[in-house]
């Protein structure tokens, strides 16, 4: 006797639905495993892969190996593993070969060495445990290899086995050198670089389709300027993305608290805009100029400019004879003579300069040092010390010596002019001539012949400018002075350097899983279309499978439906009954089916027998898909029972109208058999 709950649907009806769902779940997880196979080849979820921009596949990708080195210098990258792929076959099994730098590779991969050691020699290799099992090799064995795309031979000696959660367990890991020999790749290139680190940041850097900006080459033409002069500040802004875009750029003098520029710049893809601004500096001191760009990758560069008041330079002899007059010249910081400047001669007298900045001093001065102080308006004063000597103490010879070299200014930018003044004087008591030799960084810079009377001075002026940065030391006799030449551009920070060099060379992808497919010029989309089609077919046939068994069951119990109808059950009551029974039956059925499917997928996973291109395909269970499948299965069960039940009830009722007693006792088919229909 059946319980009322299973009046129309027997419990075993659900077996078919459960089995169908088991198969569907397993099939879907296998299909999902196939579609995600390439991703597992490239590593764990938090590993990003950098390929060359625009390359069709990991295999055609060519990346400068320096990218990996530069990445490692940046704090946003933890590990960067340059890798090269090669392919071979051994003992009938496809073997994927990965050339690596073992240290970085092990860190990126988080692989565990289960036996042996890390390779040291160039021909030594590691092998994934799964591949080792398939090839039936162990540590100490050697595997002969041939070139992937051309003739070449090599051999890899296995020194260790590694285990990972990614597809690397199906690969042979060799040195970069060995893999280069196999694929004939130049020594400065690799196929891909896999990185771990600040992925949010890296994904901003390597996203070629979005406009991205960097500022660089912040420059001022002079290192030192006087108050209220105008300097030209320039800054370059580059969009190294593949799309046009707008970026906010700010340029500010942090000392004067003046914003020079703050606005949005529209820059076309791959274009550079040069921003040139005039800036008048008012306050003396070191001014810090800050350039900043906002957006995806905020960056800032700063530089300093020295602002000082104009100043005076006093050109005077080193030594003068008592009771004889001498001449002093006053220049400003641009080496122009200053007229009407006052010169205080050791507090004894104050004299004024003439139009050519000169002043003749003919005072009676005591033997010893006298300080000359020049002043003019708001210029910073200039000083010079003169030694007054008794002319009889001077040696009876020609003694021409360089006694001072001045550099104005002492720090310049590349291509900025500086004035080198070389002072020489005849310290002897006899007139005569001498060749003055000036050296620049130890090399001959200038030779000048000079004829000087006793204690007469001569100043040689040179205007110099340099095209490269660095220190320049001017030397003559025992005097030397160093001119610092600074780069015109502020040194770009590491990140900016990196962006400029590699910002447009690579693309980063967490799921750049196209190794296998694009190898064969098959895009991932193709595979997705195929796999989705197979999944739809699979779902369709599960629908048929489940619904056919439920329909069969309802069909079997048509007589009961007929009886129920005849004793007055309404369509609604019948529907509710079928609905309730179908639900009660299908929920545990669906749960069992899912569990069975997951178990089956797990068993397939464990067996490691599902292979594609040398890599084990692990079925993937997606919770969303699983829940959807269960819900779908329940809906199909309920729907198909309702449809079958209702259509059956209609049929039976019609027959009942025709002959209630006969139908109820003997069923409908006898009439057909007797040919009465």
């Amino acid at each position: 006797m059946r319980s009322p709950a299973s009046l129309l649907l027997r419990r075993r009806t659900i077996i078919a639905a459960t089995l169908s769902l088991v198969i569907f779940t397993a099939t879907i997880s296998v299909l999902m495993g196939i579609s995600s196979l390439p991703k597992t080849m490239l590593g764990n979820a938090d590993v990003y892969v950098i390929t060359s921009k625009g390359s069709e596949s990991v295999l055609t990708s060519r990346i400068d190996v320096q990218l990996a080195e530069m990445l490692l210098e940046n704090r946003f990258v933890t590990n960067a593993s340059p890798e090269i792929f090669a392919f071979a076959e051994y003992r009938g099994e496809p073997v994927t070969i990965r050339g690596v730098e073992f240290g970085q590779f092990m860190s990126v991969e988080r692989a565990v060495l289960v036996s042996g050691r890390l390779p040291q020699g160039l021909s030594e290799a590691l092998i994934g445990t799964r591949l080792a099992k398939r090839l039936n090799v162990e540590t100490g064995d050697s595997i002969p290899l041939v070139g992937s795309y051309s003739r070449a031979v090599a051999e890899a000696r296995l020194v260790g086995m590694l285990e990972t959660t990614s597809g690397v367990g199906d690969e042979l890991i060799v040195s970069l050198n060995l893999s280069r020999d196999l694929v004939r790749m130049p020594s400065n290139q690799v196929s891909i670089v896999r990185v771990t680190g600040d992925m949010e940041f890296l994904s901003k850097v390597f996203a070629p389709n979005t406009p991205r900006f960097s500022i660089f080459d912040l420059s001022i033409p002079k290192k030192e300027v006087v108050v209220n002069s105008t300097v030209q500040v320039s800054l370059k802004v580059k969009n190294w993305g593949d799309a046009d875009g707008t970026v906010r750029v700010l340029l500010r003098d942090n000392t004067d608290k003046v914003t020079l520029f703050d606005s949005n710049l529209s820059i076309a893809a791959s274009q550079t805009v040069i921003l040139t601004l005039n800036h008048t500096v008012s306050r003396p001191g070191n001014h810090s100029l800050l350039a900043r760009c906002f957006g995806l990758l905020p960056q800032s560069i700063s530089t300093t400019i020295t602002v000082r008041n104009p100043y005076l330079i006093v050109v005077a002899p080193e030594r003068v004879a008592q009771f004889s007059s001498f001449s002093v010249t006053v220049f400003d910081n641009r080496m122009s003579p200053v007229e009407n400047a006052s010169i205080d001669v050791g507090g004894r007298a104050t004299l004024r300069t003439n139009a050519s900045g000169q002043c003749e001093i003919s005072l009676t001065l005591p033997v010893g040092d006298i300080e000359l102080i020049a002043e003019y308006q708001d210029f910073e004063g200039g000083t010079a010390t003169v030694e007054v000597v008794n002319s009889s103490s001077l040696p009876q010879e020609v003694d021409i010596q360089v006694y001072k070299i001045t550099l104005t200014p002492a720090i310049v930018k590349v291509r900025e002019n500086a004035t080198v003044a070389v002072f020489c004087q005849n310290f002897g008591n006899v007139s005569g001539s001498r060749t003055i030799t000036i050296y620049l960084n130890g090399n001959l810079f200038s030779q000048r012949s000079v004829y000087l009377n006793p204690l007469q001075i001569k100043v040689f002026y040179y205007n110099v400018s340099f095209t490269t940065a660095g220190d320049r030391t001017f030397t003559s006799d025992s005097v030397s002075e160093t001119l610092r030449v600074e780069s015109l551009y502020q040194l770009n920070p590491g990140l900016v350097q990196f962006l400029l060099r590699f910002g447009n060379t690579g693309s980063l992808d967490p799921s750049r899983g196209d190794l296998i497919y694009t190898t064969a010029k098959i895009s991932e989309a193709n595979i997705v279309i195929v796999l989705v089609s197979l999944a739809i077919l699979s779902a369709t046939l599960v629908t048929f499978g489940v619904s056919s068994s439920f329909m069969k069951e309802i069909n079997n119990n048509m007589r009961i439906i007929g009886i129920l109808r005849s004793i007055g059950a309404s369509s609604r009551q019948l529907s509710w009954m079928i609905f309730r029974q179908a639900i009660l039956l299908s929920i545990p059925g669906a749960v069992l089916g899912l569990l069975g499917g997951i178990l089956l997928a797990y068993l397939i996973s464990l067996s490691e027998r599902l292979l594609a291109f040398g890599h084990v395909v692990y079925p993937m269970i997606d919770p969303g898909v699983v829940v959807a499948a269960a819900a779908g299965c329940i809906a199909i069960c309920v729907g198909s029972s309702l449809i079958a039940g209702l259509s059956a009830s209609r049929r039976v009722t019609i027959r009942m109208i025709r002959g209630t007693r006969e139908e109820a006792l003997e069923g409908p088919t006898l009439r057909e058999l007797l040919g009465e229909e």
Partner: protein
Amino acid sequence: MLPLELFRYGTRMKVLTFAIGICVAFIVGSFAFANGLNATVQEITGKFEKEGALVYAGDNLTSSLIDESAIAIGSPHISVGIAEALLNGTSYVFFAVKDPANLLGQDLVPSPGEMLAGKDVPVRGYLTITSVEGSVTLFANHTYSSTMFPTYWHLVRWEDIVKLRQALSNRTSFMIFTSMTDSLESSIKAKGLSLQPMPGIFGYFNAGANQVTNDLWLIIIPSSFIVAMLVYSAIAMETKDRAKEIAILKTIGANNGQIARIFMFQAFMLSLLGAIIGIVIGIIISYAISTSSSVVIENSLFYLKVTEYSMLVALVCTILAGMLGAIWPIYRASHQKVREAMT
């Protein structure tokens, strides 16, 4: 006639046949996927020229020794002898080359008393190389350049490699053929030698695509199961509906076998029809996917391919599964009691 009245219950049978068709289409489509992959792989590898093969004895090059006079392979080839030896405390591979037919197009024989270092390990000076079997002192002042050999192997003269490994006096470690024919390949394999075709991408792709083909059992088994289930429910419904007809047939003298045959034939027809429909749908779907994906995705080399073999497999599997699915309901129907069926 009773047995052939397939669609007596109209919609139900039609739907079931169509369902079997879908199932078969699934098998055909999966095969088409694998076949397409294979075909694509063939097309790709076809772009590479086969450039010969590496031939060695045993499992690896280091231990391989070939007695060339004994195997008597006349085709021109390069003979290479290799030995592992210590140099300044580090183990290196040393090799010597015999290339009588000048297949390499370059002279890879150092001057007497000299060796040529690999580019990646450019050792210099008078060097004593020591192996288990002996030692030799050679002068190294240059590196060699060859795309054939690893950049960390050192090149020596044949007479020097023999000092490091005496077996090479009348043997070869391995041979490189720069062209390879099928007959040569089979004669080499017949002599028990291992052969790796060059470049390696051939073997990789072929072996890789074979693995995918081998995975197809995972598609066939569940699909066949569902076909069996479909046929089971179809025949079960049929026998249930026709219980009285069966009873009457029995009353007029039909035996169990005759009854079973009638329904077996029905199950067969159902599966066959389903299979044919499925194959047609499968071909259409595969063609549609191929066409649409090559329209949607530029430069796609990938396509689905339905072969005679895959159609045959689908047909046979479906019919077998259908018959299997029908066995139980047919057994029950043929053994049912006439009296019970009639009441």
